[in-house]
């Protein structure tokens, strides 16, 4: 695969004072360097998708062949072994082709930077703040569709950083900070994921203010101090705002719920770190639209796929050990009290038989969202190609995509964060009673 060489050297452009033209240098330098190194071809994305569809069909036919051979009754053993070997080779060839084609869809994250700089420039002017936007995205590449999907969330985060994070010039001087605030866009690859961060050197998120507002809006309980992760979680609640007035910049409020929704639609997650030195919003998205390591689980009649990344452990849960309070189950495990969720009930496709003694469960990991998910059956690990739901809509936000398991069967991809969301909005059941 010929990868386009892309040099997005750290662009460090001062955005304020107004009147500075938004920098346009990056795309030109990119195409110039590409022309020097390799010849390139422009291809319509649909053509690449046609190739991918063909490859998926090939893979499908191959697994049908697999099954046919495995179930053929009296096939000669040696012949079978020989066939299996050929099929393995075929499989790896198709898969590597698939990856090559997916690579063709990659575009540089750096192509987003000029747009973000223009947004930062106008947002800074509107807020009357001095801001510079620096980007360190090197040659990081992400699937074209995901890059397109990142535009709105990143624009939102940049505006938020200017509106809520970066202080006014006078305040920054008083604090002994550089009077010009800095927003950094950093991107790097990490395994099959790409991480894009929006980092500001502002005052950080005022957690006690968020807590106060969240309590007033009934998003957090009054009777105890939630942990920081829970307070930060409120920022993603639909309609949550710390603003008294509506600003033209970030609209009604932080609006992070929309950002998270977009990121999750692509199988990504968003994380927040905040402190006195500023705020770091980290977007973690798959580099290619596709392959996701998943764990198959069954709830009711259907199979669902959980991202392996959030699965800490597959366990058996003794139903008698589950404590019930206010309609929510919980289980003590290793000094921790974990909420117990019934997948079939969450999806409205059934529920765990209360008479069952031991029930298979999956322990989900992740800051502030530890939980045990009861399922009807835990299946195999599987690398799956994830796809969107297309036109289909579900009232269950945790169903974020589809994939193919087995020969032509469709399974839905689940987002465990969204599965556990309702609980985290209301706070975890008393954790510190012990």
């Amino acid at each position, binding site marked *: 695969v010929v990868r386009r060489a892309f040099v997005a050297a750290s662009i460090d452009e001062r955005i304020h004072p107004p009147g500075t033209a938004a920098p346009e240098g990056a795309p030109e330098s990119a195409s110039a360097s590409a022309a020097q190194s390799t010849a390139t071809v422009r291809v319509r994305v649909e053509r690449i998708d046609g190739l991918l569809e063909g*490859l*998926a069909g090939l893979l499908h036919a191959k697994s049908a062949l697999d099954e046919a051979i495995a179930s053929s009754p009296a096939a000669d053993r040696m012949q079978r072994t020989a066939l299996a070997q050929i099929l393995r080779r075929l499989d790896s060839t198709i898969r590597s082709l698939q990856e090559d084609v997916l690579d063709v869809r990659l575009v540089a994250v750096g192509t987003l930077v000029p747009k973000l700089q223009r947004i930062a420039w106008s947002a800074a002017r509107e807020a009357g703040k001095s801001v510079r936007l620096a980007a360190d995205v090197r040659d990081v590449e992400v699937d074209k569709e995901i890059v397109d999907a990142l535009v709105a969330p990143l624009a939102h985060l940049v505006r938020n950083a200017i509106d809520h994070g970066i202080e006014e010039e006078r305040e920054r001087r008083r604090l002994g900070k550089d009077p010009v605030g800095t927003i950094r866009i950093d991107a790097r690859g990490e395994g099959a994921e790409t991480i894009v961060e929006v980092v500001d050197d502002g005052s950080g998120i005022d957690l006690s203010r968020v807590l106060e507002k969240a309590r007033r809006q009934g998003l957090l309980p009054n009777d105890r101090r939630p942990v920081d992760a829970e307070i930060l979680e409120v920022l993603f609640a639909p309609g949550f705002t710390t603003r008294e007035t509506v600003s033209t910049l970030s609209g009604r409020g932080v609006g992070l719920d929309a950002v998270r929704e977009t990121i999750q639609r692509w199988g990504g997650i968003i994380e927040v770190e905040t402190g006195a030195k500023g705020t770091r919003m980290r977007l973690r998205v798959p580099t290619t639209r596709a392959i996701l390591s998943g764990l198959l689980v069954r709830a009711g009649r259907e199979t669902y796929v959980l991202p392996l990344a959030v699965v800490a452990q597959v366990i058996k849960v003794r139903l008698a050990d589950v404590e019930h309070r206010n309609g929510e189950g919980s289980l003590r495990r290793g000094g921790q009290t974990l909420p117990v969720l019934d997948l079939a009930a969450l999806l409205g496709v059934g529920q765990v038989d209360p008479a069952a003694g031991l029930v298979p469960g999956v322990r989900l990991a992740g800051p502030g969202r530890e939980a045990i998910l009861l399922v009807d059956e835990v299946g195999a690990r599987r690398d799956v190609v994830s796809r969107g739901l297309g036109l289909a809509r579900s009232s269950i936000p945790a*169903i974020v995509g589809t994939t193919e398991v087995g020969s032509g069967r469709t399974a839905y991809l689940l987002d465990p964060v969204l599965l556990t969301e309702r609980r985290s909005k209301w706070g975890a059941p008393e954790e510190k009673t012990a």
Partner: protein
Amino acid sequence: MTQALRRTLVTFWIETKLFALDVLDVQEVTPVLEVTPLPGAPRSVAGVVTWRGASVPVLDLREHDASPDSSRVRGPIVVLRRPERFGVLVDRADGIRRMEPAALEREQVTCLDAKSLLARGFGRTA
């Protein structure tokens, strides 16, 4: 004159009714496929099928209420030719017919079109 009004239609049965779609709207009528029900989807959506390696949401135009045990649904799928693909679950494919409006009425064929199906099934106006 009547020649000009004559349309080529793909016809199929849903329950006891004969429906039709313009042949230009139809990409393929598949063999019997199993539809995976989508939890939380509106009643008009039967679920999703994997067709040629792609996920295709499938409409359920049947009038009777969904069976209480929400058992799996299977049947041929009429896949529509659209940028955003979707299908219609049918009970039986009928064929391809050239028909004029009078014949449609006479034979009580309900003519469907992609646009109104999109709006009806997915609340999408396109």
